[in-house]
């Protein structure tokens, strides 16, 4: 089973990188300038008080032991407790993770739904004005900062037209319709920007396929232009798109913070920014680890998707 | 004197699991001023053989002697003498000429090699030598200031030949020098190659899949099949009385105009 072996190889690499990444994150965060205990108590605090706080938070013990404790804790879902609020990190992350996941989870498939037809059309019609127009549109979308588009859409749809509320987030568990009406604008913003971004890759991928010998073979077999391109181009185009989408998901997990900022949504990114601002290192460490884990997991899944899409990778050559 | 003598040379690529043997226990002696054609199809190991002769890769096992000296990569003296006296012409002139260099720079590159410093048999003035070899391959002197893309395939192969001849090599290696060219251009390049090898008294080792080219250009032939030298000897003997079925098959495959239509 070459497929299984290749998959196992990638799994090993995945687990290895997660461990290395956790160590790096731990070291960076613990080595960051600024003594947490000192910062918490203020500059005027007595050294004894600072030492006592350090002892209380366990900062006086060797790094390596603290690392393994932290790692072991995470394995059964304990990310530690916030220095400042004393609250478990997990209970802060969970509700906010849901918000971010909704945003990312909705916008990625929807932006693909926008990007693929857009890219397909502008690739096939690239010598006509209609294709050039779509291409120009995607260029504008690519240059558009999400927060700016978010502000623009809010001005138009929330302030001017009053179609959607622009105030506080409502969890889906409380009211589905209220939740939905507050998700429309953030998700629309992301879909427009991400859609344009992905459309450029889709276009480039399809243009490559149009020049390939196998597309000519397909045409000579009796496929019409469009159907032949969809039938024989989609999978081949997807090989390059999968990586981009994977990176897109990872960058959105953090990048959603911009959208959360514009639309005042309590997501993971804003938790991270708040924690950095208040130097709540346990929270920072936990959120960063979670994000990095997610990013590496997505990478791993992208690798697996490759095995499925591109049969050439299934045999040995990795 | 023998130019090359190869003794049980084996070349294998890849790791433990997917090992590919490109050459297997190959023994071959090539005398100076001989013209050898090495014939084989894809996967026969002919490219590996050429790279070993050029000193670009080291065989997995076996011994290569170059002009009587053991060609061990640790033997700097032997390597330097190899680099200074062996030049190579490649299959695809589009890929063998750097598109961003002028023809004069391309041709004089081998002359600027640090290995040639202080050697008396090497032309000292690059500019003069460039115009000399351009003339020898039948290109106008103003070609020197132009770029490769301004020339046709046949002309580019002439430029590649000029580069190879610039440092006055003793041995010329050729990797399918005409197979990327049209039949009509092929004749030009073969004529040129023949007359240059003649007038400069070179040792020629040419790798090709085309027996007709070998018959026309070479006096010796070696037939490679999947890494094994199945037959070798004087061209006429091998071609007129092939001992191997494979050689016969290659002979039959030579395209020639069927007279009866």
């Amino acid at each position, binding site marked *: 089973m070459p497929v299984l072996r290749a998959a196992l190889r990638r799994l090993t690499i995945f687990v290895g990188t997660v461990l290395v990444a956790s160590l790096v994150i731990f070291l960076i965060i613990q080595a960051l300038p600024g003594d947490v205990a000192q910062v918490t108590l203020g500059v005027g605090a007595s050294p004894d008080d600072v030492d006592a706080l350090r002892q209380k938070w366990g900062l006086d013990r060797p790094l390596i032991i603290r690392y393994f404790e932290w790692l072991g804790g995470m394995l059964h879902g304990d990310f530690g407790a916030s220095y400042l609020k004393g609250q478990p990190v997990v209970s802060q992350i969970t509700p906010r993770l849901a918000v971010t996941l909704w945003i990312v989870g909705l916008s990625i498939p929807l932006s693909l739904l926008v990007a693929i037809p857009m890219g397909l059309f502008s690739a096939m019609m690239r010598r006509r004005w209609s294709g050039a127009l779509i291409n120009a549109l995607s260029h504008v979308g690519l240059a558009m900062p999400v*927060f700016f588009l978010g502000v623009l859409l*809010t001005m138009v749809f929330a302030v001017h037209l009053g179609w959607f509320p622009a105030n506080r987030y409502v969890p889906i568990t409380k009211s589905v319709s209220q939740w939905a009406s507050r998700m429309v604008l953030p998700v629309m913003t992301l879909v427009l920007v991400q859609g344009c971004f992905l459309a450029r890759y889709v276009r480039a991928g399809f243009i490559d396929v149009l020049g390939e010998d196998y597309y000519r073979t397909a045409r000579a077999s009796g496929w019409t232009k469009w159907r032949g391109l969809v039938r024989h181009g989609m999978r081949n185009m997807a090989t390059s798109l999968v990586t981009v989408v994977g990176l897109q998901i990872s960058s959105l997990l953090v990048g959603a913070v911009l959208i959360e*900022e514009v639309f005042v949504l309590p997501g993971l990114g804003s938790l991270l920014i708040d924690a950095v601002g208040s130097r709540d290192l346990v929270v920072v460490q936990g959120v960063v680890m979670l994000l990095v884990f997610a990013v590496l997991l997505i990478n791993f899944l992208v690798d697996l998707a490759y095995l499925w899409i591109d049969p050439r990778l299934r045999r040995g050559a990795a | 004197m023998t130019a090359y003598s190869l003794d049980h040379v084996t070349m294998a690529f890849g790791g433990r699991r997917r090992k590919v043997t490109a050459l297997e226990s190959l023994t071959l002696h090539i005398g100076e001023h001989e013209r050898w054609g090495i014939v084989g199809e894809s996967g026969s190991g002919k490219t590996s053989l050429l790279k070993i002769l050029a000193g670009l890769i080291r065989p997995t096992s076996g011994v290569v002697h170059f002009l009587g000296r053991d060609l061990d990569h640790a033997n700097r003296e032997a390597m330097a003498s190899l680099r200074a006296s062996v030049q190579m012409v490649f299959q695809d002139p589009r890929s063998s000429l*750097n598109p*961003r260099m002028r023809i004069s720079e391309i041709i004089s590159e081998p002359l600027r090699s640090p290995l040639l410093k202080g050697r008396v048999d090497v032309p000292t003035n690059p500019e003069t030598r460039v115009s000399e070899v351009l003339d020898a391959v039948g290109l106008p002197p103003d070609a020197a200031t132009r770029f490769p893309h301004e020339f046709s395939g046949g002309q580019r192969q002439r430029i590649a030949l000029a580069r190879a001849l610039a440092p006055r090599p003793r041995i010329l290696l050729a990797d399918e020098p005409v197979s990327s060219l049209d039949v009509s251009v092929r004749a030009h390049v073969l004529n040129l190659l023949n007359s240059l090898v003649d007038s400069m008294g070179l040792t020629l080792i040419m790798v090709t899949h085309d027996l007709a080219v070998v018959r026309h250009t070479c006096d010796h032939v070696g037939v490679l099949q999947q890494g094994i030298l199945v037959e070798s000897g004087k061209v006429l003997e091998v071609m007129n009385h092939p001992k191997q079925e494979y050689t016969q098959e290659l002979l039959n495959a030579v395209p020639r105009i069927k007279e009866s239509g």
Partner: protein
Amino acid sequence: MKKLTLVIGLIGSGLVVLAALVSLVWTPFDPSKVSGIRYGSLTWPHILGTDALGMDTASRLMVGAQTTLLVGILAVAIAALIGVPLGVFVGMGHKTLGEILARGSDILYALPALLLAILLASALGSSVTTASIAIGIATIPVFQRMARASTLTVMSQDYILAAQVSGTPTSVIALRHVLPNIAPLLGVQAAASFSMAILAEAGLAYLGLSAPKTVPTWGRMLRDANFLTQPMQAVIPGIAIVIAVMGFNLLGDGVRDYLDPRLQEVR
């Protein structure tokens, strides 16, 4: 079509450079001086209005162009100066090192630039320099990969073999053959990364992770604007960002098409 791309790109990026250059010697008003008019509308002499503190928007926009260019230059310089030599080195065949670097760059590649910027900002304090460094580091793998891939393509060409056969030293091959042949692609990549850096810095500034309030940057101006009462104060810097990003993007595309139509559409 191709020329149009180049022309629009030149106009967009040219406007930004011009604004930055002019602002070095002249701005309509002192960009950090508070005038009497708060929330000024778009009338003479404050043609683009004033912000909540009464500072002249047109002047701040021009000075902001400096920051924008600085970010792009710094980030691309960091990314290219580290990424390109690494990529060429690995592409020219250092196997063990290549494997280690590939893994390292895979992790860095997957890490969102924003996360890196947040970490760095919390370590070094937020400033334009910190933001640019973070963006630059996050862009290293882009250059490393591109340099590696194009080096591999060059190394598979026969003219490399020809040079090796004559005994040309590896360092000379790198300088004479590899770098000139990968330079056009890297240039296009630099233009694309330049515009992405501008976009990323605007985002960081919007989050308050880049320049402090005293330094006028476009992202910061957008953040500080109150779009309910003064929508134009948000729209103006927003449009400036779009023009800059699109300008440099199209400039890269246009130059690529113009120089070498054979180059693939890459980014």
